[in-house]
Structure formats: C-alpha cells, structure tokens
C-alpha cells in the first residue's frame, strides 16, 4: 500500500479546498440559512407536525442531504477533472499508485469536505430550530456513507466530463431536482397517488428517509431503514465497480 501516495493526494486536495475555505463553507451555510428562514420560520410556523416533529426540525436532514449530494459530486468531479484539464494527470498515471489508492486519496478528501460541510450545516440549523438527534452514530454513519457514495459518483463524472460546463449539468439539472422532489421539504405520505408511487423511483427518497430515521426515528421516515440502507449500498457498489473498471482499462485517462 502506497500510504505516502494516498496522503499526498489527500493533502493536495484538502489544501486546494482550504485555499478557498471561506467561499466553500459560506455558500452552503448561507443557502441553508435562507431555507430555514423561508421554510422553517415563515412557512413552517403555519405547518402541522410531521411524524411527530415540528416542520422546522423535519426539514433539517433533507437540507443537509441537499448540500451533501451537490457538494460531494462537485468536489469529487472537480478534483479529478482539474488534473485531466491541466494535463497534470500524467503524474498520477506514471506514479506507483493503484486505483484503490487514487480513489482513497481523491474520494477520501472530497468526502471529508462533504462531511465537514454537513456538520457545519447541522450546527447552523441549531441556530434556527431546537432539534434533537436520536441516533448520533447512525446519523454520522449515514452522513459518511452518503458522502463517499456521491463522491465516487462525482469522481466518475469528473472522468467522463469533457468540459467544465458538463461538470455542472448533473448537480444542477439532475441532483438538485431529485433532492427537492425526494422529500426534503415534505413527507412523501403527503403526496396523492400516483405521485407517491412515482416518487418511490427517486433514489434520493431513500437517502433522505434513512437520514431522517437517524434523526427522529421510524415515525418520521418515509421508507423502512433496511430499504434505505440497501439502496445506498447498491449505489455505492455500482459506483465502486465503475471506478475500478475506469482504472483497470484507463478509460478516458490513458490512450
């Protein structure tokens, strides 16, 4: 195991993020605060409880998940796309670094950033609503697992993308709508048929539901926790398989 190599990639990626720490953290914190002001305070005060928790509390897991998904994909895709774009990828390809080690470095750093952002948003939410987390270990595990899965997904996008604009398409046009429609601001039980059934095809529903389960217990979750865990497990396995294949064949990395 090339641990120095993994450390080098990890530190390099974290240093890149730390150079712009202010904007990296300020942007998600600001947008989350605005959501809390609009949905939590202004609208939330007129809403009834959902699953035994106030509306302000109910949206906390969804809002964290909204930021985590987009930040994970953006950070990881940018991390591997930049060396491809700048040509510095030659150094990674000529180094004694295996696919697993490269992924540990790049995805590890991107996932760390996502988890930090998630925790900062969690702390910010506390300024607006007085939530309680029922199961801290499960909440942290979900946070880490979701971050890693979507960082892997972002890594794949970064390898496939052939322009900066394409890096933005998936987070903006696919992930954000899926997250909004995946129960961030409501329980899918509130939807009439057939939209409730249609929503079950949205994979983000299972992530938010599982995360909410860790916060408030089964009464606030839309689907069974086992189903949520299975969904994220399948997604993680699929991403790992694709990344392994990319490095094995050198697809879009090597001629």
């Amino acid at each position, binding site marked *: 195991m*090339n641990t*120095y*190599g993994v*450390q*080098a*990639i990890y*530190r*390099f990626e974290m*240093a*890149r993020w730390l*150079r712009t720490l202010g904007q990296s953290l300020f942007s998600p914190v600001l947008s989350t605060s605005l959501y809390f002001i609009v949905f939590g305070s202004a609208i939330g005060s007129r809403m009834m409880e959902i699953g035994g928790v106030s509306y302000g509390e109910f949206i906390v897991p969804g809002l964290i998940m909204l930021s985590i998904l987009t930040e994970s994909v953006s950070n990881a895709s940018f991390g591997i796309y930049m060396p491809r774009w*700048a*040509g*510095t990828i*030659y*150094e*990674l*390809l*000529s*180094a*004694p*670094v*295996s696919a697993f080690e490269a992924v540990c470095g790049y995805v590890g750093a991107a996932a760390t950033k996502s988890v930090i952002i998630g925790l900062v948003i969690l702390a910010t939410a506390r300024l607006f609503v007085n939530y309680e987390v029922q199961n801290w270990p499960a909440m942290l595990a979900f946070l880490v697992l979701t971050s890693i899965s979507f960082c892997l997904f972002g890594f794949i996008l970064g390898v496939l993308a052939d322009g900066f604009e394409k890096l933005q398409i998936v987070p903006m046009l696919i992930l954000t709508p899926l997250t909004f429609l995946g129960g961030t601001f409501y329980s899918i039980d509130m939807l009439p048929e057939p939209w409730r059934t249609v929503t079950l095809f949205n994979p983000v529903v299972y992530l938010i539901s599982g995360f909410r389960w860790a916060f408030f217990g089964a009464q606030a979750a839309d689907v069974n926790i086992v189903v949520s865990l299975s969904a994220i497990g399948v997604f993680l396995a699929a991403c790992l398989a694709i990344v392994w294949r990319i490095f094995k064949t*050198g697809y879009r990395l*090597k*001629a």
Partner: protein
Amino acid sequence: MAEPIISIRDVSKTYKSGLQALKPINLDIMKGEIFALLGPNGAGKTTLISIICGIVNPSSGTVTADGHDIIRDYKAARRKIGLVPQELHTDAFERVIDTVSFSRGLFGFAPNPAHIEKVLRDLSLWEKRNDKIMALSGGMKRRVMIAKALSHEPKILFLDEPTAGVDVELRRDMWAMVRGLRENGVTIILTTHYIEEAEEMADRVGVIDKGQLIVVEEKNALMRKLGKKQLTLELPAPLERIPDGLNGYTLELAAGGNQLIYSFDAQAEDTGIPALLKRLSDVGVDFKDLHTEQSSLEDIFVSLVHRTT
C-alpha cells in the same frame, strides 16, 4: 559491459484511431548511460516514453525497468522512474516547494526536506520555493518539472524535449545538471529536436522514424561509421571542369569552380589525401588553402531519416 536497466521487447502501439504509432520495437538501455532518442515530429518518441512510464497502454510487447515488468510489477518499476514531460503541465496555484514535495509523496517516499532542498538548490529554485507556479517564467516552470521528477530520487530519468523553448543559458545549466545526475548513477533517456544536445551529451543514440527504430548506435561510432569527411581546397583561379588526370578520385567543384572538394572515408586507413595532393601537383592544379570537415550528428540524422522516406 554495463547491464540493461530498461529492456523493451516487441513493444508496439496502435491507437484506437488506427494510427500505428510504434512498430514492434526492441531496445536495451544500459545502466548509467545517457541515451538520446532522436526523430522527427510524430515519429513515436513520446509514445515510447509514455508506454514505459505507464501513461499509454502498449498494444503488444513487454518492458522491464530495473528488472521489474512495467505492468505486472508496475509499482516497483515506477518508483525507479522520473519523467519530465514535453508540455509544461503544472498546478498553477501551488507553491513550488509544495508541488515538489507532493511528487515525492505520490511516488511512495517518506518526506525528506533535506533532499527537496538540495533538488531545489541544484535547480536554482530555492529562492522561489514559496512562489506560486503561475508567477514563474517558462524556464523556471521547466525547472519545477525537473525538480518534481527528481523529488523521489529516480534511478531512471526520462527527459522529453527538456530544453524546448528555454534560453541558451538555461539549456547549458540543464546539460550540466544531466551530467551531474549521470555521475551519480542515474540513467538518462532524452528526446530532443536539438541535435547538438544529443551530440553534446549522449553516449548512445537511437533514431526513430515512422514508429520504427532505424538505428541504435554508440554516438561516436555512429559518427565514424555514417559520417563522412571532406577535404576542401581553395583554388587561386576557378576551374571549369575537373582535369582528366584526377579521374578515380571522388571530387566535385563548388563555389563557382573556386573550391575543389574531396570526400573520403573517415574510417579508412588510407584516406588518399597524400596521393591526391601529389596528383594535383602533377596535373598542375595549385591551391591557396585547404581544410577538412566532418559531418555532424545532424547531417547523419537527416540522411538516415531521408533514407527511410
């Protein structure tokens, strides 16, 4: 005799587009030598280097670096190799010392600030260590690329057009640095367009053209074997034609008949010059000056490449 540090066996490369960049190549590069790979643009030099370094997948064949197969045992092989690519690929926002330290870690070596300092000092980069790369000149960026390649103390160093676009002073500095590395046991493989660079530094020369290695030879032997010598006689009055009495000598008139040029085999024991001079006297051809010149590596390179077209 030195043993090979790189062994290339039947390595070929055909890109997905169908372009055959390399026909099967066999080559041994000896431990501790400076090997110059010459060839026109698109000849396959960079493809060959990229295969050895792991950047391009070969279509066939095997390569070993210091006894390690570059595919099966890629980690051990790559730890021995440093690469300075042709293009200036750098992380513009990074500091010099950070990017060089990053390279050392990436190649699996523990931090060694003393070595990094030595490399930066040797390349006159120490004073710039805290500068961002984007603030450096092109020549300084080239030095940073070399520093990155040397950060993990490689036994084999590939320099792909290392002095392209750098000024004469920096080129001389780099030549001195390359010689210093060789004295420390590093094997150096360089590709270059500057034939004088190969002539100045290389122990052996390989010429590649259209993906084919057309000659590999010890530089001096190549120049002796394929180089030709010429004796030029400056005549006091122009000649209209070569006198009949000089038949049998490979002579030609130049400079409007004011020069008589005699080509001879530099390797031959008897160059024929004394006999020619005596014969000139016999037929009444006088001369006011004479000099000899030998073809350069560039002349040889051009003639070899033209021979294959």
